[in-house]
Each structure stands twice: as C-alpha cells, then as structure tokens.
C-alpha cells in the first residue's frame, strides 16, 4: 500500500541529518537515540531549505535540497570528534559515566523489569500500525488539507500560498508548513501524486522513533526508568492516536519533535547543555509544525534559559518562528495567530471546569497518575520546572478555550497530549542521577558542579 519512493525518501532523511553527530555528545548516544536525532535533524534541514527557497520564490528540486546536508553529513563522517573524548564510532572503551559510575556502553537495565518494557512498547506500536493499515485512524483534516497541501507543494515545488489562500478551498494557509513539506519531500522525482498511505503510516513511525529516543537518551543518561517511561509514552500515545484518529495530521510529528527537544534538555551526562544543539533544532522544528508549537517553545525556552542561562539555545527556534511569522505577515497568513474573540472572564470558570474533565483523557487521569508515581519515587523536586511548563501550557489552552462555545470535545484530546508529555519528562528527570564533578571526564566544556545542577 505504500510506495517505494515514500519509503526511500523518508529513509534518506536520517542519512542527510547524520551531520548531527558533530554536535556535543551525540556520537555517544545509543543507536536507538541517534537514529531519531538524525531523522529530526534531516527533516528539519530539508524543511528549512524548502522554506527559505519558497520565501525567495525559488522552486526547490533535489539538486537544490540535497547537497548541503549531504556535504555536511560526509564532512561530519570524516572529521574527528572533539567532545567528551568519544571515538568516531561513538564508543569510549573504559570510559565510565560521571553520572552513574557505570560503564555506559553496557547500558542500564532495570533491576525489576529488565527489557520487559519492550513488550508493551512493541505491542502498542503494532496495534497502532494495524489500526492505520485498517484505514481506521485517517483524519479528515489529512484528506482535506494536510495531505492536499503537501501534494500541492510537491507539485509546484514551493509553498503555494496563493493556492492555500484561495477562498474556494481555504486550506488553513496560516498553519506552519513542516508536515506538508515532509509530504512534498516524499514526492521528489515522482509524477505529482502524493502517497496517501505513506502519510498516515508516518504516525506509527513518529511514535516509534519517539519511544526509541526516550529509551536511548534515558539509557545514555543513566535513567533507570527510561524503559518503563518509553513504554508508558508509546502505549498511552498509541491509544490517544487511535481515539483521536490523528493519522496524517501534524500531531505525531509535533510530539516527536517536542520529545526530542525534551530528551536533549533532560538526558545529559557530562554537562546540562551538551545536547543544546539538538534541542535547538527540535524546538525550531516544533515552531514549524503546529501553531501551538510556538507556545511550547516559548515556555520551554523561558524555563530553560532562566534555570541555565543558556540564551544561545533560543537563537535558532526564535529565528525560525520569527521567519515564519514574517513570511505569514507579508503574505497574509497570520489568521490563527490573532485571537478571533475577545477573552471573557465570565467563561473562565465553566471552561476551566470542562478542561479539568478533559484532563482525565477518558482514562480517569491514569496517565497522569502513572507519571506521578514514577515522579514521586525519584527526586520529585527536579520535576518542578517540567510541571510548571505543563501547567503553563494548560493555562495557554485554557485561554484559547475560554469562549462562549469552547468546543473542548473537538480538540482537547489532541492538544492535551503536549502538557502530558511535559509531565512525563518531570518523571524522567526525577530519576536522573545527580551530576557529580568528575575529574576523569574528558569534556573540556564540563561546567563547574553546582548544587543547583545536582538538585
């Protein structure tokens, strides 16, 4: 049901994004985390190129899109690493994690469940895949505009805003373009027809890559609950995707990039900022995936910059979001970014009450309870920034829904997956081992030990 072109061009993305191995300690990550990082980097790079070319009115082609990431990837493969004394293969024989004291290449198996987390993870992904193949999860929005825009952009080789703005078939021209660009990328060299099956099958792909990244990053950082949390993420989000029928929509890509950013910011070993380049790329991709992604990025950047004073982290995401907004402003695509109705306090209480009900996620709040148990069995105070971010995003949703007719039942099931993801990472961070100063660490950039970084 899926075309070879879609598969091959999708598989090309991690190859084109493999220049990410030059960033920080990426080379030391397990393969399970490196592949998603390379995929995220490759996809963002191609999408950024497509956007820049479109902004200048240039039609893209393989000859314009491929050389830059390809040259970077080849160059990165030939240059010796500089960070953390990691060998080109990502191995550091004999090097012991400054965090856990364990040889990190041996990995960390939970003393209780071992690799048992793979069972629900694989089962959940297979169930999601099966439901997608049954044609049971295809979103109406995918057929109406996500896929259609992708096909159109793929045919015209540029962001065809004249088409998306046309009042005869208004296609949310203000929605960020990453997912349609991904679809357009998979049409390169084809006959102008989009692979609609490929689009919906990207939902289990994004979820699988996300779960692998969560486990791989956690394993790298010595987080012993990484496996169970990856299983929790995969199973709960597979269920949400089935219930909300999001196949082909932007949500799976949004959650994937959000997860990569949170992994990069949370799962460090030598120093808190060692994966900042990956976090910056993922956050920039988030801003180009969905409108609410901009709010997620604003909250995460604010909390990160306040706690770590790492302002450079925000450079790429802010430039990306600003460029998209400027492009939208120039071409009249900013509709969604401007509130349609005035906020009215009189609707606040009933909407908040309804939102609290929706937070149960039709599972009696059990996803939150599960993460809370994991959180409370670790150093719970470390989860506070993530809980604040989760609350901040929920408050943003409340402000959006505070209307006479909030229609939470339409979209809350989808939008509340982002604050839940932030809460999951509160639990993950609670189990990160304390950062200790390590005189054997070969990282020249390892910052000084501070009580704040340990707590």
């Amino acid at each position: 049901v899926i075309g070879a072109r879609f598969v091959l061009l999708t598989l090309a993305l991690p190859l084109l994004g493999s220049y990410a191995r030059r960033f920080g300690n990426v080379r030391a990550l397990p393969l399970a985390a490196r592949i998603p990082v390379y995929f995220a980097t490759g996809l963002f790079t191609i999408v950024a190129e497509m956007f820049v070319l479109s902004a200048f009115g240039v039609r893209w082609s393989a000859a314009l899109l491929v050389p830059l990431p390809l040259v970077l990837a080849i160059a990165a493969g030939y240059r010796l690493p500089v960070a953390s004394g990691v060998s080109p293969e990502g191995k550091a024989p004999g090097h012991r994690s400054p965090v856990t004291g364990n040889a990190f290449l041996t990995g960390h198996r939970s003393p209780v469940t071992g690799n048992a987390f793979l069972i629900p993870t694989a089962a959940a992904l297979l169930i999601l895949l099966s439901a997608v193949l049954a044609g049971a999860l295809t979103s109406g929005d995918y057929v109406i505009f996500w896929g259609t825009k992708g096909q159109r952009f793929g045919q015209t080789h540029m962001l065809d805003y004249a088409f998306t703005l046309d009042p005869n078939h208004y296609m949310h021209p203000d929605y960020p373009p990453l997912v349609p660009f991904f679809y357009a990328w998979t049409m390169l060299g084809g006959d102008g027809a989009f692979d609609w099956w490929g689009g919906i099958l990207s939902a289990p792909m994004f979820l699988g890559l996300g779960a692998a990244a969560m486990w791989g990053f956690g394993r790298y950082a010595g987080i012993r609950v990484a496996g169970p949390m990856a299983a929790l993420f995969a199973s709960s989000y597979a269920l949400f995707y089935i219930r909300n029928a999001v196949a082909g929509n932007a949500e799976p890509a949004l959650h994937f990039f959000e997860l990569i950013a949170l992994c990069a910011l949370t799962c460090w070993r030598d120093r808190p900022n060692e994966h900042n380049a990956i976090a910056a790329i993922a956050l920039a991709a988030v801003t180009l995936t969905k409108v609410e992604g901009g709010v997620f990025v604003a909250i995460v950047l604010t909390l990160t910059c306040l706690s770590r004073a790492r302002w450079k982290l925000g450079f790429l995401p802010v430039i990306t979001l600003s460029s998209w907004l400027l492009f939208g402003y120039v071409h009249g695509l900013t509709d969604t970014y401007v509130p349609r109705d005035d906020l009215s306090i009189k609707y606040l209480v009933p909407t908040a009450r309804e939102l609290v009900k929706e937070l149960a996620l039709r599972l009696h709040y059990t996803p939150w309870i599960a993460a809370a148990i994991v959180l409370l069995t670790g150093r719970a105070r470390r989860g506070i920034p993530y809980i604040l971010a989760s609350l901040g995003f929920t408050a943003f949703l409340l402000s959006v829904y505070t209307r006479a007719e909030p229609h939470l039942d339409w979209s809350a099931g989808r939008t509340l997956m982002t604050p839940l993801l932030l809460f999951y990472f509160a639990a993950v961070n609670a189990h990160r081992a304390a950062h200790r100063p390590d005189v054997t660490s070969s990282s020249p950039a390892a910052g000084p030990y501070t009580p704040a970084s340990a707590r």
Partner: protein
Amino acid sequence: MRIASIAGWIFAAAFTVIAAREHLARGGPMLARTIASNSSNNPRDAEATLQLYAYASRTMPKGATVTAFKPRSRGEDMMTARIAHGQLPYQRVVPQRDLEPGRTPPDYVLTFGGPLDDPRYAHAYETRIGALWKRMQ
C-alpha cells in the same frame, strides 16, 4: 526504582490492552481498500467516495479540467473542492462556479449523492456514491 519500574510497566500494559480493545471495536486488523475505509462517521460512503475519485483520476486525461460537488448539498462545495484537489492529482480542479453560464465549463464533473442536471454533460461512469460526467463536444 522498583515501584517506578513496576508502575510504568503495569500502566503501559494496561494502555496497550485498551488500545487493542479499541482497535478491535473499530473492526480490528485488516488491509483497507482506501485510507478512509474505516474512518469518519460514515466509513462506507468515505470508501466509496475515495474509490470514485481514484477511478476518475485514472480515467480522465492528465491536465483535464474537472469540478466536483454534491447537487443536493451545495453548502459543502468548499469541502468537496478541498478533497477533490487532493484526490485528483493529475487533473486541474476548478471552482464549481465554472459551470455557471458565461464561464468556461470544465471537461468533467464529479457529482456525489445526486445527478447532474446539465445538458452539456453526458453520463460517463456511475457508482453507488456518485457519478462522473463528461462534457460533450
């Protein structure tokens, strides 16, 4: 650590079981004929609609002009046009108003849920869900 791992595993297993149950409730494993064969509130019509689009896309010449609409539900013109743009990649989808007098009529018309009452067009293909009409020269 032990409690966290066990809790994570149990909840993950529980969500997986619920996901399996909901998948089975929607028909369970199968290879669908179209991407929407088991989606939407009316999957049977959704499947038939996409199949008619697929037939039309295969049989109409590349570059032919075409419009699509529901004769008994003209309020859905915009929605129908959005779907047509996606499902007819080789043809040029034009606005429904091109059927009005004084405008260049499209080469083909796709109707859903009702016949086309226009003497300029001849019936070319029909399914349960709709029909394809070709403009007579």
